[in-house]
């Protein structure tokens, strides 16, 4: 029985891959990632404001630029996941999908496809960013390859998880324009407003409030935190490190990076579980 189930899932997954590759959304979204790769060096200069000892050619600038671009690539990944899930509803192809595979299989297949495509966006950035971004400014020191790879791996994981969360949102909110606006709008603006409200009244000195301590556990912040943490910890900032990290990720009292990754994974898991329950009861009329 388990073998049959696995076979069926593989079949539905193959169908989802074919559906994805026969439209252009997946490769069109490489374009904003390319722009991010080109702009990465500019993004890195933000660290100079915070870390006076960093020079124009410091290796840390490239890491910071990559981290910044990675957090935005995760948004592109989330947008792809949302488009993937809502496209079937927009074009009414969901009927045929549900007639040839179970709803759970279709949802799981979309999660896998979105995770892989979003991870590819991040990989594309990790490979091209240092090359293009570095070339654009010229004369920059390449950071240690191990550090680059470590940051890249975290960024790819975060983008993949956001791809999955995008599928969950798109399954819950089937209106394509609405779901994409909700996902991207939340990540660009919404969560900053929520975090701002939670941190309101906290000074830069003294212990953060209970509410402010929630901020690292919001999904967008958790991803940002996971990406920024390796950069900040490798900058050798000493006691300033936490302050810089809090500023960059927009959080208070950040947990370790691996905890932040788990938090994002938990959000993705919860989102998919909710989407599975709601999706299973939905009438396709």
């Amino acid at each position, binding site marked *: 029985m388990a073998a*049959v189930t696995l*076979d*069926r899932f593989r*079949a*539905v997954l*193959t*169908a*989802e891959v*074919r*559906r994805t590759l*026969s*439209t*252009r959304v997946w490769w069109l979204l490489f374009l904003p990632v390319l722009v991010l790769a080109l702009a990465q060096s500019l993004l890195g200069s933000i660290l100079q404001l915070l870390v006076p000892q960093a020079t124009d050619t410091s290796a840390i600038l490239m890491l910071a630029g990559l981290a910044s671009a990675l957090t935005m690539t995760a948004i592109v990944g989330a947008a792809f996941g949302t488009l993937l899930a809502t*496209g079937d509803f927009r*074009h*009414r*192809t969901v*009927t*045929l*999908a*549900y*007639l*040839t*595979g*179970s709803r759970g299989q279709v949802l799981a297949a979309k999660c896998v496809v979105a995770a892989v495509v979003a991870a590819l966006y991040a990989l594309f950035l990790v490979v091209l960013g240092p090359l293009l971004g570095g070339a654009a400014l010229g004369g920059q020191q390449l950071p240690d390859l191990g550090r680059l790879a470590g940051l890249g791996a975290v960024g790819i994981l975060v983008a993949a998880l956001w791809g999955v969360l995008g599928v969950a949102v798109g399954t819950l909110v089937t209106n394509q324009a609405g779901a994409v606006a909700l996902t991207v709008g939340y990540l660009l603006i919404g969560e900053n407003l929520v975090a701002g409200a939670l941190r309101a009244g906290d000074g830069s000195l003294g212990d953060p409030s209970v509410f402010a301590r929630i901020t690292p556990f919001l999904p967008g912040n958790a991803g940002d935190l996971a990406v920024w943490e390796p950069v900040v910890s490798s900058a050798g900032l000493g006691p300033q490190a936490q302050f810089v990290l809090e500023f960059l990720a927009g959080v208070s009292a950040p947990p370790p990076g691996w905890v932040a990754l788990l938090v994002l994974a938990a959000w993705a898991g919860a989102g998919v579980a909710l989407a599975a329950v709601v999706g299973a*009861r939905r*009438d*396709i*009329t």
Partner: protein
Amino acid sequence: MQDTASIDPAAPPGTGRIVVEGLGKRFGPVEAVRDLSFTVEPGSVTGFLGPNGSGKTTTLRMILGLVVPSTGRALVDGVPFTGLVSPGRVVGAVLEVQGVHPRRTARAHLRAAAAAIGVGDARVEEVLALVGLTGAADRSAGGFSLGMNQRLALAAALLGDPRILVLDEPGNGLDPDGIAWLRSFLQAFAASGRSVLVSSHQLAEMELTAQRLVVIDRGECRFDGTVAELRAGHGSRVLVRASDPARLAEALAADGLTEIDRVEDGVLAVGGADAVRVGDLALGAGVAVYGMSEERAGLEQMFLRLLAGEEGR
């Protein structure tokens, strides 16, 4: 389109039966379908008739697991649709609002579905040829006519070589040639021991295609049986020209035949009896008969009479 001989004559295994038991669906305050029960047997085409908004589409979508029933259940091949391990190999469906991504080609659309069902790409070429879309296979579906979209939907439904076909108004958008082709296709499909449930408001077309009928109105079943049974109950009338229509009408009524209309001067239309019985009663009553003929009502007439009759109850 190819001729229908290309259908595999050997029916696939399985009961191939659709069983609907006390099915009901409520959308908010609207009761779309109420306590509907019927069975679709293999080997014949079952027509699913009803006026627009009578609940046909909702019922078909409940059978296919797309709409969750409020009450009752629908079994396909012995289990609810969602319990089928490989649904695409058991049921093929052509539904009214079944989309294709406008930028996807017909072939890409079918190849994705073929992968989900678990059949090879060679089968895609077979069904494309069967519905006559081979020449348009590499065109984007966004530029297809309604008729081409219907044929593409039928091709997708046939990919898994299913033992049950469910079609919602499949004639929409087809030209007369296409409708004639579809009719013979469905009949050959059913004749190979498989089941066909086809909804339509084109009653005349159903009369030519279906052997069994399920008629619903406002979400409730009005009739479930063969076309012949529907005829026997509601269809034929005997037109009789008699010397004394009033006396004949009395004699008929005395024998339990009360469905009598005076259609023109001296002519009675008698329902629920054949010419032999009317002739015998006329002889017994001493009424001369100048002519008799059996009027076979079209399905449309029967259908309207059926709905009107139920309404009066």
